[in-house]
């Protein structure tokens, strides 16, 4: 199943977590979407790459990530045929609202350019925490996948 990470900011928090999930954290600062306020404003899904299981991984920013989960579930329930279902994973950093506030200020005309680098810097400050969250999600996800398949051993199939 393809994955979508949703945080309050897509090009900052969700992107960092997504790259952590893909083990591509070293590409964060060179990623063209990182801190790109024009991309954030569009509100569209950002494709990050393929995960270990071959699933497509996306990220996006939305002020209330839980609503994206609900909308996606509603869309899936109404769809007649669903070949590429998307699993939405809402992510948040407890107690951290400054990145979201700075990203909103960065969208303002004239003064926005002053806040955009500050939003990036605030994200880099908690980069390790976000990447760790992405890696934890990767472990969780890969734990679930093998369990769906029976493991073959010398003596047959392990239960």
């Amino acid at each position, binding site marked *: 199943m*393809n994955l*979508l990470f949703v945080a309050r900011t897509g090009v900052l928090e969700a992107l960092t977590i997504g790259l952590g999930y893909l083990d591509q954290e070293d590409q964060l600062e060179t990623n063209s979407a990182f801190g790109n306020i024009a991309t954030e*404003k*569009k*509100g*569209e*899904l950002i494709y990050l790459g393929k995960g270990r299981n071959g699933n*497509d991984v*996306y990220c*996006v920013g*939305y*002020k*209330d990530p*839980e*609503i*994206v*989960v*609900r*909308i*996606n579930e*509603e*869309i*899936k329930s*109404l*769809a*007649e045929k*669903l*070949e*590429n*279902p*998307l699993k939405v994973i809402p992510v948040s950093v407890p107690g951290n609202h400054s990145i979201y506030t700075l990203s909103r200020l960065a969208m303002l005309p004239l003064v926005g350019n002053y806040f955009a680098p500050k939003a990036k810097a605030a994200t880099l400050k908690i980069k390790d925490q976000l990447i760790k969250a992405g890696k934890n999600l990767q472990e969780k996800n890969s734990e679930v996948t093998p369990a769906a398949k029976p493991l073959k051993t010398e003596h047959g199939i392990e239960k």
Partner: protein
Amino acid sequence: MNLPDFDQTTPDDFGKIRHIGKDAEKNDIYVLGTKSRDAGGLLSSLIDAQNLSQEFRFIETMPYVNTWLRFGGWLSRRLSLPLIGRLFIAIGIKEAYPKLKTLVRDVGKTRLMEVLQ
């Protein structure tokens, strides 16, 4: 204003897709509250990523929500003052109604154009 769902939104309704009927071409028509002014990009890319763009079409109505509607809605839903809030909502709806009507007509026309092409 006598419509059953008019000004009845609760916080739990955001993100829920509600069926409200069928149009002349038998398309199912739904409504969705997103709690955001700019959810268009998110919605279209959500369906694109799942190869569902043939099944769904989202029509943005937020550009037609004027200050009267915003203020009236805030009084009615957020401050639980529907009697006062609906006075402003009534003004807002009267102002927005011709534009909403044009929007509905344009959506129908576009759909017809798609069919003709």
